Structures are given as C-alpha cells and as structure tokens.
C-alpha cells in the first residue's frame, strides 16, 4: 500500500498533481477567487461547522446507517458487504451533504440566488431543497433527455419552488446542463451562487465538495471500527463526477484500504457508448478543470452514454485522476445490464431499492465479494435510492 499523505494537495491554486486548476473565462475568475477566499474563511469558523453538523443531524438525518447486507453476502459467499445508506439521507441521495454546505456558504457571502446543473435530478432536488430551507431563489439547468428519464425529480424540484430550465444542446444530458449553467453564471456572477454538484469544475469546487462530502467516509470509518473492530478491506463507490466516491474514500486515504471507483460502461466500452472517463479517456480540460476526459483526437468532447443519468458524463473530478495515476484507487466499469441485475438483486435480497448510479457500485461488489474471504469487509456506498428510476427500470426489467 502506498503511503499517501492527504495534506499535500490540492496546491494553493487548486492543482491535484497535474490536474484541477481554474480554466475559465476572465468574467468568472474574480468570482472563483472570491469563492475560494470565502470557503477557506468559513472553514476556519467554528460556528459554521456547528451549524453544518447540526443541520446534517436534524435536517438530513445523519449519521446514515452502515448496514450489514447479510443475505446478499451469504448468497455471494465471500466478503461481508456493508452498505453505507446515503439513500436514507433527506431527499434520497448523498447530494444534500454538499448542497447544505454550499448554501450555508452562499448565505455567508450574501447571495440570495442559487443555480445548479443536474443529471439524475438528485443534485437539483437537493439544491432546490436547501434553497427552500434558506429562502433563496433557485434555478436548475437540466438536459431535455434527463428531464424525460428522471421526470419524478423534475416534479419534486418544481414543488420545492425551483425553476427547471431545459437544456436541449448536445445530447441534452449533464454535460450540456453544466455548459448552460456556466453561461448563465457568467451573466449573473454579482448576485448568484453556483452550486456545483460534484467534485468537478474549477477550483475551489473539487476540494470544497469533497470536504462537504467527506462526512460519508468519516461516519463509515467509525461505524465499521465500532461494529467490527477493524477496517474494511475494500471501498466501492460509483463515479459520475466523483463526489460520493471521494466522500467515502477521502477519510480512508492513509489507511491500508483498497478503493474501487466504478464508472458506467454503458452499452460496453467497445461500442463507444459509455461514460468510462478514467477507464478510457485522455487528459483534457472540461468545465474549468484539467482531468481525464472523453474526447476525440482534435480535443472535441465526446458524448457519454449510461442508463444512469447521474453517471452519464464525459468528465471526472481532478482528484480521481490523480488517485488513478498514483495507483491509490482502482477504477472499474459496469455495463447497463450488469447494473440492472445488481439493482434487482438488492431489491430481492435486502428489501432496498437502489438508485441506478449506486447499482453500478453494487454490481462491482457482486464481482469482488466472491473472490474474497468471509473475514474481509467491503463497504459499498449506496449513494441514493431508486424511486426516481422506476420508469427506466420498468422498460428494461418489465416488473
């Protein structure tokens, strides 16, 4: 196991090794510098931490349980699988940890309007939720394809008082929603806070979102130590932009624990219709940071594909790119069909309906667990619940 010191990154300009940074137009640069300063100021402020953790407890319902999936583990006949139940957090996914932190920061900076991009709609719902909680105006950019396949979340956002702005450019998915949010922000920087939903985007977003999400790993680490007296052998989490995985991984980064990030292989890597950015991308700049990107030889960004809207993204957070290069994390990929199978298994074996995103992590656990000993522990991040996916799942599984 590599000795990996977490304090050494990002550097003061937001670089994770060769990745990260701030690649944006000049109109946004001063806003990012101001945001960075505000974030580091608030991070020093005990009253912020108190309020953040108080809300995580009383509003979000943290700590979320760490659940030993015994029937599934026995069925697989290998490692003991524990599920970190982010699906039980308020709004049904881990995304709320981050939106709560950013909304507190927005309030601290005196901004009364927030915008967000969303793919699966979970980040949009989580942003709309905290906007309602703090009395802020909220606009969410969402691709037209995603509006179709995640219709329930669109209704939830509207009920919460947010305006959902359809984005039809490109493939009408997460990348296009983020393009449009950045354009809108360029024209509204003076009074609008942009709540980015993953550990992607320009500095300070990757480090900020990681810090708001690391509560997942901190809880999981103390929960597993308390329950079993030892560390897990392996952590598994799905990777879209990379926030639920970074949140789980980060507090274990100096421990001898294997980390596996799971990307969407869509219809199969060989078909080109996938979202395995770390698995088959190359280094580029997208949405304000340098990282692995799915692109052609001319530097044009390619369209991603996944059955899961939250993983359907041709970029990935810069910290993951660094972890990959340094061998500290391993990145696998799971096809649409394998994710659906894992989805069904969790429903039937444990009585839990997982999000399609999280089903990718589960599918990887189905592969890893049988190869391991019953003394070994795998923690799978169950990043969200699957209610939003019933329409798509019904098309494929015909239940």
């Amino acid at each position, binding site marked *: 196991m590599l000795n990996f010191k977490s304090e050494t990154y990002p550097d003061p300009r937001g670089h994770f090794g060769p990745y990260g940074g701030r*690649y944006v*137009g*000049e109109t946004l*640069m*001063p806003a990012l510098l101001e945001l960075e300063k505000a974030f580091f100021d608030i991070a020093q402020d005990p009253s912020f931490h108190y309020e953040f953790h108080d809300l995580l407890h009383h509003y979000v319902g943290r700590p979320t349980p760490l659940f030993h999936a015994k029937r599934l583990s026995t069925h697989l006949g290998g490692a003991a699988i524990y599920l970190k139940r982010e699906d039980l957090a308020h709004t049904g996914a881990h995304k709320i940890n981050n939106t709560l932190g950013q909304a507190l920061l927005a309030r601290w900076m005196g901004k009364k309007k927030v915008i967000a991009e969303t793919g699966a709609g979970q980040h949009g719902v989580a942003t709309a939720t905290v906007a309602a909680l703090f009395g802020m105006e909220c606009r969410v950019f969402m691709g037209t394809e995603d509006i179709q396949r995640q219709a329930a979340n669109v209704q939830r956002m509207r009920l919460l008082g947010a305006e959902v702005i359809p984005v039809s450019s490109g493939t009408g998915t997460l990348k296009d929603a983020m*393009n449009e949010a950045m354009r809108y922000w*360029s024209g509204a*920087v003076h009074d609008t806070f942009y709540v980015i939903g993953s550990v992607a985007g320009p500095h300070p977003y990757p480090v900020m979102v990681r810090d708001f999400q690391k509560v997942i790993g901190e809880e999981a680490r103390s929960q597993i130590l308390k329950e079993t007296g030892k560390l897990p052998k392996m952590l598994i989490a799905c990777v879209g932009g990379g926030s639920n995985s970074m949140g789980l991984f980060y507090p274990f980064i100096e421990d001898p624990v294997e980390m596996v990030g799971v990307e969407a292989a869509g219809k199969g890597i060989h078909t080109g219709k996938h979202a395995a950015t770390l698995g088959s991308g190359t280094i580029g700049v997208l*949405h304000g940071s340098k990282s692995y990107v799915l692109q052609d030889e001319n*530097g044009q960004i390619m369209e991603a594909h996944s059955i899961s809207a939250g993983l359907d993204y041709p970029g990935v957070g810069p910290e993951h790119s660094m972890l990959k290069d340094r061998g500290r994390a391993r990145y696998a990929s799971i096809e649409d069909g394998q994710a659906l199978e894992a989805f069904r298994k969790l429903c039937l074996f444990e009585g839990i309906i997982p999000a399609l995103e999280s089903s990718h992590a589960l599918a990887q656990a189905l592969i890893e667990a049988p190869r391991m000993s019953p003394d070994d522990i795998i923690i799978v991040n169950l990043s969200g619940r699957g209610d939003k996916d019933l329409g798509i799942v019904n098309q494929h599984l015909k239940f």
Partner: protein
Amino acid sequence: MNRIDETFKRLRQKKEKALVGFVSAGDPNISQSLRLIKAMCESGVDILELGVPFSDPTSDGPVIQRSSGRALKSGVNLKAVVEMTREIREFFAHTPIILFSYYNPVLAYGNKAFYNDALAAGADGLLIVDLPPEESEEMTSEWRGNDLSLIRLIAPTTPQERMAKIAASASGFLYLISKIGVTGSDGLDTGDISEHIKRLRSVTQTPICVGFGISTPQDVAAVASHADGVVIGSAFERLIEENLENPEIVSLLAEKVRACKAATVETS
C-alpha cells in the same frame, strides 16, 4: 515590428480605430468560410479573429454556439484552422490573424506543435478564452519563443489590481469584455465601458479593444471614441446564419463590414 503593432501604429496615423472581426473558422464549410473571410479583410477588417470550433463553448451565446456547431459538423478542427490561416495569409500579407480558441483543442494539438505550426502558417496571436494567466505558463513554457502575441481578456468583474497583473502578461492588445455574460448578449452601456477603459488605461500602454454585444455602426462609433479597437463577432455570425442560403451572402457581409469600418474613423 510585428503585424499587430504595425496595424495599431498605422491606424493611429490615419486617426482610425481598429475593426477586429471575429468569425468561426469553417462556418458553414471551409471553402465558403474562406470566401467570407476574404470579403471581410477586403472590406475593412483590420484584425482578423479566427474562432476555433469547440464542442462545449461555455463562454459563448447561442449565435456563436451554432456557428461553431456548423463548422464542427463540416469537419473543421484546429488542424484545418491552421491550414485556413496559411491560405488567408497568402492573400493578405499585412492583416494580423488571431486564433481564438478554448484550451482543450490546443492542448490536444500539443502546445509546442501548435506554436510552431501557427507561426509557420502566418498567425500573429492567440486568445484562449478559458486560460487565465494563472494557468497559462504550462502552455507558454512549451513555446520555442514568444513571437505569438498572447491576447488577454479583461472583464467588467476584474478588479484593478488584477487588471495590472493581466496587462503585464499580455501582448498585442487587451480584449476588454464590455459586459458580464456570454458573447452575443445585447444591451451596450457606453458609460460603463468608458469607465472600464479609463481604469485599464491607468495601468497599461497596450492598445485596448472592446468586444461583446457590439453589433451596429452606431455601437462601433460610440465605443471607438474611447477604445483603440472594436471587436465584432456575433453580429457578423448572425448575418451569416440568416443568409446561409442567400447567393448574396458575401456582398451582404462585405457591406456590413464597410459600414462598421466607416464608424471607426475619428470624426472629431
């Protein structure tokens, strides 16, 4: 002296301001685009900005998004834009050519190879929308020399101190963004612009060109009375888009350029 500096010097002597014309290279295809560009240069564009098409132009409004999309669809990429630069240079020995790009296509081309090829093709400068001074050393450190001017952006949001820092790292001219937002948004506030120009002049001697949201000869005249040059992009692209099927497209564009150029001539 390079072509950019020469151009500003010549214009000062003639009491004119620079008309900087932006066009997405290869829109709607390479041969038609070359025809349009030649007409622009013949009709009064003093400095040509060739937009490199990119799949995800996050600083651009709908008009340039669509023009960039048409160019991409006809197969145009940075290699083709460098090739187009070479062709344009054959016809226009003195017009400065600035390549206007997002960073990713340049990164994919390779910073070193790009510098060499762009210079050899006859380009004079480079403006990378999403590469602020904080990140640009990774690019310039791979350049063999500094013969390509690095045009920098200044925004209405840029604080004074930062303006000075950016100006110190710029060459050729400074591109002052007239207002917050993406390209092609309307509503020009010349009062604001003259204020920004004043602030910027207090920290630099470099010529200042103003762009974003300038579309009519009246706009040009209003801005030209304060700035050293005026950039027009979306307005030209809008004309191109509205006349894609019109056989008169080249002469219509030439007419628009002439009207804008006429407005850069000092009247006082």
